[in-house]
């Protein structure tokens, strides 16, 4: 544990109180309408600032604030190339699917990602399969976030690990269940601001403490010249890996169901454009700074108790103790915003995709509320239980929920919304091909598959081939269904 002042604890307390206050204010802004429409997509009234900030806060997880600086601490400047796919994350994240998903959400009334696929192919099985996938994989990702958050609390404030897990589960579960999507989006926005301020302050103070960019360069050069190369120590980033990560960051982000759900909540396309502009600026400031904190941390605190402590240790070494609490809230904000968004998607999968859409007859508001709140409690408890005793294979599930989910769903979703010839057979074959090929490659080759590329790259190719082959073999969807999704001239 590193030395911390009581001001750190105070700042943490204020941060949590502000989060709850925002959730309360968001709840008061709820619009009239169906419970699930308000709870899952905020009544489709979310504006550009909140849309942009909730999108980026969901995208930036514990991995961004704990894992990436740790990698930079170990591998130096090469990690800047590793992260460089973020150059186009805003463009691909909003450009590939944003507008079309927003259009279809309002046309079809879809509230969740599985809703979209189910309605496009009028297939219960596609809705159920994608709902179960969302539930399992998002829950496992929540487990990883609980673990990351509890470890930060343990390292920084000496909170016992189990209490850390419990704190995260209760705090995030409460405000998510209380205010639904609107509360999650508002608190995400606050957390995104905290994240950016925290990282920029750390980078600024760190740079001042070390003595400028040239001093960082000289410090790294003295430790190991390999820290200055694009390849990094021990060939950390060979060319195929650099190419792979340029696929992983922009495309896994674009295909992540939790992020796609954000587009269902936006007010209109002008909102999308402004949010995309905002996100471009935000990413330009945040991601190079996050990596830079890890790099200068190598000079400032060369020896760490554990690799994952790079960010908190650099904060405590560089930032004055009066500000350290605010800055340490940044990684906590990243973790909490990801947990709340994933919790909402996982509980939505239960309440909407597995329950409401499979029950005969209408579901009353009261029952929908009860099922949704119960789902949040169940998902939170299950994730908390796994976080207390993480299974050995958890890391594989986390990897899968990070990139495998996009490997499974990105291509089928793209073709479903843009290609009238795509049918339910193509969708199912594409989903299975992406999923199975990803799983088999990881089992057989780890993170370096054929030609040393990441399994994600080949899984996208397999998924695309499966979609096309399945669609050609299957029967075209009826014209009356396709007319809801495409103009008549597109169907000729």
């Amino acid at each position: 544990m590193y030395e911390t002042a009581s001001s750190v604890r105070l700042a943490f307390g204020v941060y949590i109180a502000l989060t709850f206050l925002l959730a309360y204010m968001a709840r008061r802004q709820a619009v009239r309408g169906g419970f699930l429409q308000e709870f899952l997509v905020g009544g489709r009234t979310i504006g550009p600032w909140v849309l942009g900030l909730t999108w980026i806060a969901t995208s930036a997880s514990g991995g961004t604030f704990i894992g990436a600086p740790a990698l930079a601490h170990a591998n130096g400047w090469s990690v800047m190339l590793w992260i460089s796919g973020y150059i186009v994350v805003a463009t691909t994240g909003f450009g590939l699917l944003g507008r079309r998903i927003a259009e279809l959400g309002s046309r079809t009334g879809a509230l969740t990602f599985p809703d979209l696929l189910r309605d496009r192919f009028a297939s219960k099985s596609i809705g159920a399969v994608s709902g179960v996938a969302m539930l399992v994989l998002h829950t496992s990702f929540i487990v990883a976030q609980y673990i990351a958050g509890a470890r930060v609390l343990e390292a920084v404030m000496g909170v016992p690990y189990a209490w850390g897990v419990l704190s995260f589960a209760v705090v995030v579960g409460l405000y998510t269940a209380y205010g639904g999507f609107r509360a999650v989006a508002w608190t995400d926005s606050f957390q995104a601001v905290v994240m950016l301020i925290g990282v920029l302050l750390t980078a600024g103070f760190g740079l001042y403490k070390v003595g400028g960019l040239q001093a960082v360069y000289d410090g790294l050069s003295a430790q190991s010249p390999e820290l200055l190369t694009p390849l990094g120590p021990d060939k950390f980033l060979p060319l195929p890996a650099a190419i792979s990560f340029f696929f992983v960051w922009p495309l896994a982000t674009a295909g992540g169901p939790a992020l796609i759900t954000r587009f269902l909540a936006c007010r209109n396309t002008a909102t999308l454009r402004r949010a995309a502009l905002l996100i471009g600026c935000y990413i330009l400031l945040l991601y190079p700074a996050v990596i830079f904190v890890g790099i200068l941390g190598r000079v400032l605190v060369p020896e760490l108790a554990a690799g994952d402590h790079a960010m908190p240790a650099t904060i405590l070494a560089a930032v004055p103790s009066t500000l350290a609490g605010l800055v340490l809230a940044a990684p906590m904000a990243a973790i909490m915003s990801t947990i709340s968004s994933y919790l909402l998607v996982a509980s939505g999968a239960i309440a909407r995709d597995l329950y409401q859409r499979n029950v005969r007859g209408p579901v009353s508001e009261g029952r929908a509320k009860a099922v949704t709140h119960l789902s949040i409690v169940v998902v939170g408890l299950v994730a908390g239980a796994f976080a207390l005793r993480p299974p050995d294979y958890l890391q594989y599930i986390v990897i899968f929920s990070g990139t495998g989910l996009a490997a499974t769903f990105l291509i089928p979703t793209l073709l479903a919304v843009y290609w009238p010839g795509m049918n339910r057979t193509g969708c199912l074959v594409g989903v299975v091909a992406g999923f199975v090929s990803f799983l088999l490659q990881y089992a057989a080759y780890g993170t370096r598959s054929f030609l040393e590329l990441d399994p994600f790259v080949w899984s996208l190719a397999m998924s695309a081939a499966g979609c096309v082959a399945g669609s050609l073999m299957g029967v075209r969807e009826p014209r009356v269904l396709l007319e809801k999704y495409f103009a008549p001239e597109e169907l000729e």
Partner: protein
Amino acid sequence: MKIGGLTKAAAGVQAVMDDMDRSPGPDSRPARREAVEAALLWCAALIATVGLSTWLGGRVEPILGVPRWAAVGVFAPWLVFFGLHLWFCRRRESAGSKP
């Protein structure tokens, strides 16, 4: 009272405009065109960033304290593609497209 009435009327008009904006025809082509543009930008960024960084791989002498390959291969393309992203968003706006 009058101000309150006007505010309500303005909110009503805004709600109708939002509804119109959210109720487009089913044509997927404008969104598809944007998706293709985004994909092309991604390809160009991949080639520029990984290509330049690899080509300059051995050049670690500092430019303002940043290794040359990172300054030219990562930060310069980042700024260029940030400009292209702004153009991408502004162009969509000036096209006046609605969902």
